[in-house]
C-alpha cells in the first residue's frame, strides 16, 4: 500500500516498541529467510505473495523505540495500533487498533486452527480498515473517516496519574538496562506492568526481556484467558 500511494503525499512511519533494540527488530525488517506466518493468520491477513515480499522488505521508515516513547506520547496500550496524522501535523484519528481483532484468541492451541467464521470476521475487519485508509489518502479532509475535532478529542482521552507513573517506571527500567544493569531494570518493567495491567506493551515487553518468545508464552496466554469476555484489542469504530 505504501508503494501504491508513495507519490500521493502519503507515508507510513512504522515504530517498533522494542526495548531489545535493533537486534530484536532486525530479523523482521530484513529477514535472512522468509518469515513464516501461521496458516490461520495468513487466512485473516489474506495477503498475496507479493504483499508478503513487500512487507518483508519495507521501504518506508522503520524506527526503533526502545523506551516506548511513542506509546506514551500517543497513548497506545497495545500493538499494532495506528494514528492518522494529516499534512499539517494534526491528528485526525487518535490511536486505535489498525484493523487487528481478537480473532487470534479463538485459535486452538493444539491444532493451530481458527474457526472459519472468525477468520472471515478478521479478514473483513482488516479490509474495512484498509479501505478507510485508502479513502483518507485519496480524499483527505473530505474523507468520512476523518473525525471531527470534538470526536478526535474525545477519543484521544488522556493518561491518568497512574499511567504517567507507569511510563516513568518503564523508562527508568530502560535507562538502567542501558547502564548495563538488567537485574535492577527488571523490577521497574514489572512495576509498570503492575500499575497498568491493561497496557499490554509493558506486560509483554517485560516477559520478552526475560526470554525471547516469552511475550507469547504461557503467562501471556493465561492473562489473555483471564480477560474472559473483555477485549484484547479495543473495538474499531471507523465512523
Amino acid at each position, binding site marked *: 500500500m505504501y508503494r501504491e500511494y508513495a507519490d500521493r503525499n502519503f*507515508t507510513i512511519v512504522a515504530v517498533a516498541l522494542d526495548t531489545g533494540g535493533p537486534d530484536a527488530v532486525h530479523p523482521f525488517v530484513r529477514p535472512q529467510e522468509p518469515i513464516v506466518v501461521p496458516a490461520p493468520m495468513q487466512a485473516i491477513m489474506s495477503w498475496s505473495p507479493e504483499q508478503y515480499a513487500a512487507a518483508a522488505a519495507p521501504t518506508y521508515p522503520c*524506527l526503533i523505540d526502545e523506551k516506548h516513547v511513542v506509546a506514551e506520547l500517543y497513548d497506545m496500550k497495545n500493538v499494532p495500533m495506528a494514528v492518522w496524522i494529516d499534512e499539517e501535523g494534526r491528528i485526525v484519528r487518535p490511536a486505535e487498533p489498525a484493523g487487528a481483532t481478537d480473532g487470534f484468541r479463538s485459535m486452538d492451541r493444539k491444532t493451530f486452527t481458527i474457526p472459519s467464521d472468525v477468520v472471515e470476521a478478521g479478514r473483513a475487519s482488516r479490509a474495512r480498515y484498509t479501505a478507510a485508509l485508502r479513502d483518507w489518502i485519496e480524499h483527505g479532509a473530505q474523507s468520512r473517516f476523518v473525525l471531527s475535532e470534538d470526536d478526535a478529542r474525545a477519543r484521544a482521552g488522556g493518561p491518568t496519574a497512574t499511567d504517567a507513573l507507569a511510563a*516513568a517506571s518503564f523508562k527508568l527500567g530502560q535507562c538502567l538496562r542501558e547502564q548495563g544493569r538488567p537485574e535492577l531494570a527488571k523490577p521497574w518493567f514489572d512495576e509498570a506492568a503492575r500499575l497498568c495491567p491493561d497496557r499490554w506493551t509493558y506486560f509483554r515487553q517485560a516477559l520478552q526481556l526475560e526470554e525471547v518468545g516469552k511475550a507469547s508464552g504461557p503467562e501471556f496466554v493465561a492473562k489473555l484467558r483471564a480477560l474472559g469476555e473483555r477485549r484484547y484489542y479495543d473495538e474499531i469504530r471507523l465512523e
Partner: protein
Amino acid sequence: MGITLIYDGRACGVSSAVESGDDLWLSFEDLTAASGWEHKPEGLCLGDRCVPIPPARESEFIAAGDRFNLAAFARYLDQPVVHDETASVWLFGESALVRGQALRSLEAPDFRLPDLDGREHALSDYRGKKVLLLSWASW
C-alpha cells in the same frame, strides 16, 4: 557514588545532589543544568513559565538559601518521580495533565528515533505528507 538525573529524557550527572528518602536536593546551578528550571525572584522559571513557590511551603523546596528539592517540586507539579536506590538514578516523567492537554490539542507530538541503520528520523520530517503512524513489536 554519583547520582544520575533524567529529566525530559535527558540524563545528567549531578555532583551536588544529596538524596534523602523521596527527596533530591541540588544546587541551583545543577538544577538548571539538569532540568532547565531556574530560580528567580518570581519563583521557578522554565522559558516563559514561572511557578511561584507558596511562602508557607518554602522549606519543602528550598534549604539553606541555596539548595533546591527537585523531587518535591516535581510532585508539586504532579510529575511522576521514580528513583532506583541501588543505582542512584532519578527519573522525572511528564505529568498526566500536560500529556493529556497535548493529546487533546490534536497537534501530533514530535519525536526523534533511529532506524535500523542508526539514522535519526523526526516525525516532523514528514510534515506535508499524510502519515500513518503505526506501532508494532518483534515480540
